[in-house]
């Protein structure tokens, strides 16, 4: 799960946009977070003291997608990803599976078939 870009985050980055003061200037999340990936609160996890923005993300993220969290908190998608990445790393939130480059063809088939069944009954 280690993203390839992490070392780039170490250096100085100008904080042009106020939103990124919420993420201490970081612009890349620590885990890959697809727009449609849904989040679940980790049962029993004890929340440490969080920044107001991280707390806001934690409050709305359960059973919602990355895109929904961004829309509901009115934070840009990149900022949302960084904050969610932190919450996942802290064990407060987990991410549910989606299709990605490592998804097997069988899993892909199974998902498309489930989607088709669901759509026909929708």
């Amino acid at each position: 799960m280690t993203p390839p870009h992490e070392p780039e985050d170490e250096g100085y980055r100008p904080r042009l946009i106020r939103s990124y003061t919420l993420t201490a200037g970081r612009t890349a999340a620590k885990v890959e977070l697809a727009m449609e990936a849904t989040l679940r609160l980790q049962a029993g996890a004890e929340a440490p003291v969080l920044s107001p923005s991280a707390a806001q993300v934690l409050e709305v993220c359960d059973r919602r997608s990355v895109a929904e969290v961004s829309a509901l908190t009115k934070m840009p998608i990149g900022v949302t990803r960084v904050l969610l990445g932190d919450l996942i790393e802290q064990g407060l939130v987990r991410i549910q599976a989606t299709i990605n480059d490592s998804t097997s063809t069988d899993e892909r088939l199974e998902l498309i078939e489930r989607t088709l069944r669901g759509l026909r009954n929708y």
Partner: protein
Amino acid sequence: MDFETTKAQRAAASTKIVIAGGFGVGKSTLVGAVSEIDPLRTEALVTNESEGVDDLAAVPTKATTTVAMDFGRLTLAEDLVLYLFGTPGQRRFWFMWDDLCRGAIGAIVLVDVARLDESFSPLDYFESKGIPFIVAVNEFDGVPRYPAEEIAAALALPADVPIISLDARDREQAKGALVKITEYALMRLRESLTVNAN
């Protein structure tokens, strides 16, 4: 990550279909017609040079802007949610499409017959990326209707790409388009298996 991950937890809990097409062709209308929630909007920060989303390793003089994406949600089963993402129309925001399309089942390219040329670029994009897509002609009131073959010829569509017409405001017809792209994506995937097996 959990070590006791069950099969149910490994199965994808959400997926997406991308809705593309020119500006004002009815993408948001289609999303709104089937979504169970009022469509939501997410924004990404973009530098003026459009080199990358949220890329702030920029000189301080480089201005930033935002690109908005509207999306809707359909709960298909207790353990499966489908998201519909409308693509940002302007060409300079195309790099966002890679983010939107990664892992998507496929795409619906909405077409307005009065402005066919606006569909060329989205069609090229999905073809070049190998993403399954269908063409849906949005029939606004009073717009002359052309036979599907004529539209397919005008768009130079590959022969196997399905083309349908719909009223993007109609829930059942919008749903029909989603069924169509999903069926087509399934067929394409099965075909690729057959080819690989031979």
